[in-house]
């Protein structure tokens, strides 16, 4: 096990724990840069991973750090996407301005909703955001002068300062850059008073208030920052899918974002990225399994003769081609994660790291939750 020897308080303010950790992240960054050479066929999927990473980051700030669960984040993605496309294509303004306006408008709308909605707590807030998302989806449908309504709106390839990002490789790097920017900004906030105030609201509102945290202001700020990130993700997302239609920004997408942060691991930025990889790559995995599974699993029956193999193949083939399979698997995984690993993929990752760093002294009880009785008489 490695111990970090600390000689100054400034060491605790760095983005990385120590040079070793920094080098690991540098290596990861170089690996990401090398991906277009290694897996050129998957570049569009990887761009989606990065965009989802931004979405995960956005919801992680809100749900994972401030403790406010939103079921309406697809609406902010939509606001970002439509604003960006409208500003760039219909008004002819520069691409980067479209992105900034997407973030600002998304944040502004969230504040408009947030001011009344944040007076609610827990599940009531979640329901309010759900209702808000449905309203916004209706606005996308009805306001066809701007959004193109149900006919949809085609999106051009991004051109920034005269440089075209039409190629998959170029767009991949663009998304990677924005994800890294998002991660940097968010971790800056989290090591500042703002981030501490958010975490305090999540853990104990009453204590946060007694320490001088203005609950309404910081909740609104978290909501606005989260929506702003979602707006940026929306601008990139519009280029990724190439065609905007209101039904893309459905409640189902919001649920997928929530799944992302829960499966990834609430309360860590790693979790947002892990979750994004998981949610964006799972459909790819499923579609590949569709082709491979029937052939693979019917082989062992070869000893029973050809007709048996064919029969098993047909049954499996019909099963994997069922249309509802994907949401079903998503749901199953969500249930399993909540049951067996409440801290998500990040939790598993942390345990694995600890296991190897203190080998052979790891004991299971390290992460077992202790029951606490002292919080019974909560105020309000």
């Amino acid at each position, binding site marked *: 096990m490695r111990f970090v020897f600390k000689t100054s308080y400034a060491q605790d303010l760095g983005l990385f724990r120590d040079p070793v950790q920094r080098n690991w992240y540098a290596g990861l960054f170089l690996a990401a840069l090398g991906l277009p050479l290694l897996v050129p066929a998957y570049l569009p999927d990887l761009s989606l991973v990065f965009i989802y990473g931004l979405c995960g980051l956005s919801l992680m700030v809100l749900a994972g750090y401030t403790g406010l669960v939103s079921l309406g984040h697809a609406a902010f993605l939509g606001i970002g996407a439509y604003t960006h496309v409208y500003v760039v294509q219909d008004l002819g303004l520069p691409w980067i301005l479209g992105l900034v306006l997407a973030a600002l408008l998304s944040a502004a709308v969230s504040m408009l909703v947030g001011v009344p909605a944040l007076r609610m707590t827990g599940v009531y807030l979640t329901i309010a955001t759900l209702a808000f998302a449905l309203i916004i989806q209706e606005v996308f449908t009805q306001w066809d002068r701007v959004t193109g309504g149900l006919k949809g709106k085609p999106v051009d390839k991004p051109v920034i300062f005269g440089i075209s990002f039409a190629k998959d490789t170029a767009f991949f790097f663009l998304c990677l850059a924005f994800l890294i920017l998002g991660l940097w900004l968010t971790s800056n906030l989290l090591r500042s008073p703002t981030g501490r105030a958010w975490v305090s609201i999540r853990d104990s509102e*009453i204590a946060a208030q007694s320490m001088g945290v203005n609950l309404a202001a910081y909740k609104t700020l978290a909501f606005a920052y989260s929506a702003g990130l979602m707006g940026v993700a929306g601008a990139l997302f519009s280029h990724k899918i190439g065609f905007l239609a209101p039904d893309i920004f459905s409640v189902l997408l919001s649920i997928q974002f929530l799944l992302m942060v829960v499966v990834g691991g609430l309360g860590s930025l790693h979790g947002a990225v892990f979750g994004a990889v998981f949610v964006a790559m799972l459909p790819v995995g499923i579609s590949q399994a569709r082709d491979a599974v029937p052939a693979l699993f019917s082989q062992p029956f070869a000893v029973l003769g050809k007709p048996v193999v064919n029969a098993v193949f047909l049954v499996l083939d019909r099963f994997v081609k069922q249309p509802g399979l994907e949401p079903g698997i998503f749901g199953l995984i969500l249930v399993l994660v909540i049951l067996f690993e409440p801290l998500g993929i990040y939790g598993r990752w942390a345990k694995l790291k600890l296991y190897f760093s203190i080998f052979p002294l790891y004991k299971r009880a390290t992460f077992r939750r202790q029951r606490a009785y002292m919080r019974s008489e909560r105020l309000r």
Partner: protein
Amino acid sequence: MTFFKADGLVINFGGIRAVDGVTFEVDAGEVFTIIGPNGAGKTTIFNLISRIYDPSAGRLTFCDEDITQVPPHEIAHRGIARTFQNIELFEHATVLQNLLLGRHTHRRSRFVEELVFLPRVRALELAHREAAEKVIDFLDLQPYRDSLIVNLPYGVRKVVEMARALCTEPKLLLLDEPSSGLSVEETEGMAFWIQDIRNLLGITVLMVEHDMSLVSAVSDRVLALNYGRPIAVGTAREVQEHPEVVKAYLGG
């Protein structure tokens, strides 16, 4: 000058009058204790001072300012910090992070500066850290600096909560049953710390407490309550011997 004064505090919860016309004054630099049987309204008075509850009648004055209508999060900015009877720490954060949140009232950096973590923010963060470290030294919390609260024993959590309140650099410290759930030794330690807070840091302490040994050891003046009404004020000894107080505790 009035340092702190509660004047005719009343609060009704439905038909129950939990605090019924409580008036007392705390002078700067003293340790003032509120005692009373269960349900006497001691913690409710604290929650009124923290502005978690709105009083039905009465006035609160702090440093010559009427704080009866001040929003709850502003109370800490005025210089009143508190602890809770059932510890309210941020459980999934380290001791250090808890203490740094105690520095929230001294926040000088703006959101946009923090977003890009300007050198100014870094310098301010270092200053907050220095201040938190002073409190860590004062209360001997060095071994627990980087432990998560969930992993700490109850007695240490009590101290951490007091440390977090001290990080706000308050003028008035409200301690809600500092010794509840502590062992005899830990309670003795708590008495020393309360004396040190008053003598070395010059912070006025207003506390609610049941443990009479702690009350007698540290309090300058004691107020006894029963059913939300004050029944006696004076030194610990005077109050303990007051016939009304004996009656309230033992019946008769």
